[in-house]
């Protein structure tokens, strides 16, 4: 039995982006909070204590909602994406809490290996937290994310793309940032094949409203371990674009 650690994870709601003189400020409304309780590799959800307010009924209903979500998370009655998001958000939140003001040195103490599929949402969640909460610059945040993660694809079966709308329902900003990362990738693809929309479209992370999390991770991770078959097909464009990061298994 290790030490339990707790942090709050938020689901859903609206994100409000406001550009100020000192950069982008993001605020949220309508989110559903859940307390993530971790102990080593295990994680469970608890409903937060409701804050007192004059509207007892509203508070009661809110608490019911939180408890319902926590119960479903613990029972596994949620989508793999929601489950992955819960774990990812908790992991990132705790890591940054532990890093405190030294969050720029996060890669020295926070190193993770992802294996493809929906768990790769952790990359975007860390990116979001760095950008929105630590107010990191884009390049700085991307470099930290890259340094923290390694991709080791275990199965091509995990390649199923995820509807961006589903990500948006969980965490609106994550969906926005996936699109932003996709734009950056497409920009690099454009530099390599200017005007070749056929090749750029075929190599993009987001296609027809769905995000390929393996491509997302392969684009963002500092190291990618994969088979030659994966290099030859799903990762071909990324491999030719930046071969240094890829290590053949």
């Amino acid at each position, binding site marked *: 039995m290790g030490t339990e650690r707790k942090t709050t994870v938020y689901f859903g709601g609206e994100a409000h982006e406001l550009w100020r003189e000192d950069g982008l400020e993001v605020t949220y409304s309508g989110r559903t909070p859940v307390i993530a309780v971790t102990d080593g590799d295990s994680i469970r959800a608890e409903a937060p204590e409701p804050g007192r307010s004059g509207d007892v009924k509203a508070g009661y209903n809110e608490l019911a909602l939180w408890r319902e979500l926590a119960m479903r998370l613990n029972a596994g009655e949620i989508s793999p994406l929601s489950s992955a998001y819960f774990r990812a958000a908790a992991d990132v939140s705790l890591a940054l809490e532990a890093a405190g003001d030294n969050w720029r040195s996060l890669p020295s103490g926070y190193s993770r290996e992802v294996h493809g599929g929906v768990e790769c949402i952790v990359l975007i969640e860390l990116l979001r937290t760095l950008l929105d909460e630590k107010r990191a610059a884009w390049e700085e945040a991307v470099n930290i994310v890259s340094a923290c993660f390694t991709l080791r694809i275990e199965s091509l079966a995990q390649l199923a793309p995820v509807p961006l709308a589903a990500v948006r329902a969980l965490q609106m900003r994550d969906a926005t940032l996936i699109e932003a990362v996709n734009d950056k990738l497409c920009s690099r693809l454009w530099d390599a094949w200017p*005007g070749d929309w056929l090749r750029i479209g075929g190599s993009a992370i987001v296609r027809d409203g769905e995000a390929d999390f393996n491509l997302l991770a392969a684009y963002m991770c500092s190291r990618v371990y994969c088979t030659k078959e994966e290099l*030859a097909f799903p990762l071909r464009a990324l491999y*030719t674009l930046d071969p240094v990061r890829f290590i053949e298994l």
Partner: protein
Amino acid sequence: MIVSELTPHIMHDPARERFHFPLGAVPALAPLRLAFSDGRAAVRSAELVVSGDEGYEERYEMAPEGGDWAVTISAPEHGIALWYSFHLTLEEGELWLCAAYGGRFGQLMSTRGDGFRLTVYERGFTTPEWFRRSVMYQIFPDRFSRDSSDTARHGVEKHIAMGRVVKYHEGWDEPVDWQPNSAEGFYFPLDFFGGTFRGIEEHLDYIKSLGVGVIYLNPIVEARSNHRYDAADYLQPDPILGSLEDFEHLCSEARAKGIRIMLDGVFSHTGADSVYFNRDNHYRSDGAYNAGKKSPYYSWYDFRKWPGEYRCWWNFPDLPEVNEHDPGWEKLIITGEDSVVKTWLRRGASGWRLDVADELPDDTLSLIRGAVKSENPEAVVLGEVWEDAIIKYSYGSRRRYALGSALDTVMNYPFRSAVLDFFCFRSDSWALQGALLTQRLYYPAPMYYALMNLLSSHDVERARTALATRLDARSLSREQQARFYVSDSQDARGAAMQKLAAVVQFTVPGVPCVYYGDETGMNGMLDPFNRATFSTGARPLVGWYQKLGQLHSEYDALKCGGVAVFSPHADVLAILRCVTGGRDCFGSKAENGVLLAVVNRASEPREVVCDLWLDNAGLTGEELGALQALHLTEAVCLLDGDRAQVEDGLVKLNLAPESAHIYLLT
């Protein structure tokens, strides 16, 4: 106005057979399928609009075919440069899919923009196979090599006896003259070093060691100047170079070693000091200038006011222009039984480079082609053209000389510019790849594989100097060029880049042409500094050029194989050449082989992956399929033995700084 939201989904790429079949230029009357994608099924109807000069326009209704819109048309019955675009009807209105990004990809526009290019060339257009498979060596005859006889000195004396001012450099190592040497303050190239036919002949083994199959000689006929672009007598060799027997002996000796000789025909003008014009009375002939209308040559020229006012080339009074449609001129130069172009072929030449081809009418060029081919079907007609020869517009009309009825091929100055821009860091490999692919797509294949790919010539600064200094030599005055000193560090940089540029030159389709002295590391700004005597510079590359020449001779893939060009990194260019199935793209026998040339211009190492299976890099679908079926696994560099793995068409390469490789893929 550009309409962007549908642009990624409605596209056309002339380098993909899905959209343009067959790839590249097509012969007259050949079927051609053109298509564009419609990824969002947004198009309700579409029309292919093909246009050309002088109001040419044809429209073809297109039909949906498996997510694309397509139509198959028949190419026009004669060679012509055309442009096409797609006129689309969508729910929101009418749009045009027009060419963008250097003509490579489409862009939706609300009004009609630039069209995609389409080259149609004459049916039956062929070029000599021996030429397409050769390496060329260009020699400026006065400056290549003296011989041990007194030929040149006697020739100089003969010129002087005629009344000409001639300077003979006693020392071979003396600098060329460039200072004004006329009363008007102009420089006239009247200094001779005494290079001869015999001098060239004595170097044939050396030239052969470079893998050379054809020597291009700048003009050799009798003339007043050292460059001899001012012909005085078209049928006589300049006595400074040697006798007719010397020339014929050179040709036969060269031929015995597998080398042919190509001459420079300067037919748009003559020298004023010539048999034909005879301004200076140095000849006994009745010239147009000294004899007026009683001269048989009077009608060759345009006198606004005889004798002193006449049309001349670029207003140089020493170079009176001729009327190419004058029957007398046509007969003597082209059509007569013993015409100039025929006679020199009989004397042993194997082709003509036509000086200022732009300034010869298309029908004259066709006549020359006919005369040359009638004398020797294997002889070559090569034109001096500085731009894209397919769409060259000059003197009020679109030129047709590159469409199969006139020139076999042209000097490829656009190649030179693109390569030097890349190695001078004025562009990146994507730009170079685009330029090379453009030539693959728009030149007729018989001409494309015969393009004279040069890095230097007598008209431009030497490649070494361009690469070393990264200057535009034209921005310097002649005085500044004369005083310009290429430092040792600059020369080192130039040599490093020249090695890489030469690899590109020897591995793209066409005839690589080495200007004498480039291989020995000579520097030189513009004329006359690029015409110094043959010598060895601080960093000769003879061994490098010999190796490239040897590989070119050894591997048919480099001579006549299919081509794909890749830019895996801004600093790295890769060129794939392949022969599969034992035939080249003209159906001639060729040895199978796949070679990949890779150059890294950067001063840092580069790790790149080259994707050989890209479907729009230049190979046809058939060539790509054959390449994939080879299941290539290994790459071994023929220059230094470096090895790399090939897996599923991907070649991962660790390239040293400023390095070049030519890999044999197996």
